[in-house]
């Protein structure tokens, strides 16, 4: 299954890219983060993040479907 991933801020810097299209067997955002954590060595744990699927906040256990756009959201600091 192909997913689209966008990276922002600290995660963008640690992944070394702002987006990518990934072939993966990850069934949920939780699975996907575990896979990417291994690949990029992110310093943030899943507990420090939120996740968005198709530009809406999502659960970590929501099933992913082909073509979904996923964003892992580090702690925010607007204002």
């Amino acid at each position, binding site marked *: 299954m192909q997913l689209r991933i966008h990276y922002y801020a600290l995660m963008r810097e640690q992944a070394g890219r702002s987006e990518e299209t990934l072939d993966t067997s990850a069934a949920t955002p939780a699975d996907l983060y575990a896979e990417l954590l291994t690949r990029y060595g992110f310093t943030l744990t899943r507990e*420090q993040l939120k996740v968005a699927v198709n530009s*809406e*906040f999502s659960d970590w256990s929501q099933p992913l479907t082909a073509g979904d756009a996923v*964003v892992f959201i580090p702690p925010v*600091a*607007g*204002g």
Partner: protein
Amino acid sequence: MRFRFTPAAIDTCAARRELLDLGAGGYVSFEGWVRDHNEGQEVMRLEYEAFQELAVKEGERIVAEALRRYPVKQALCIHRVGSLDLSAMAVWVGVSSAHRGEAFDACRFIIDEVKHRVPIWKKEHYRSGDSGWVNCERCAEPGHRHDPSHDHVHHGEPAVLAIQK
């Protein structure tokens, strides 16, 4: 749109005009300015980055919530993205209402929620040459639940998530 981003300086005069209302007797605005220090480090400039698609939705939800919670007339929030120098305005919130109490409450609600819920990130560049992504202290604690309704208040300086040399 009652929440929006701008890559250029925020035009507060134009924004304020959007809130004019003959029935309004009070107007409260908040501006966030780039401060010259944070956590004991001398700050030289900031960079703001946003996940704009989601940020605009969440920002609109916050302003709509403020309009439901408080009997105010109009409310608007504008946030900068990109590189900001010292004293630059990073965010502006304006609220007009018949009576002033509600305008203060709604304005404060909006800026508090924006800082905690809207996917915007801030990188500080220090005089030392280091830089760091800033975040809300409690949000950075492992196990802190990112419940959109949580209402914690910041005391003291925001923590730095990761210092880069």
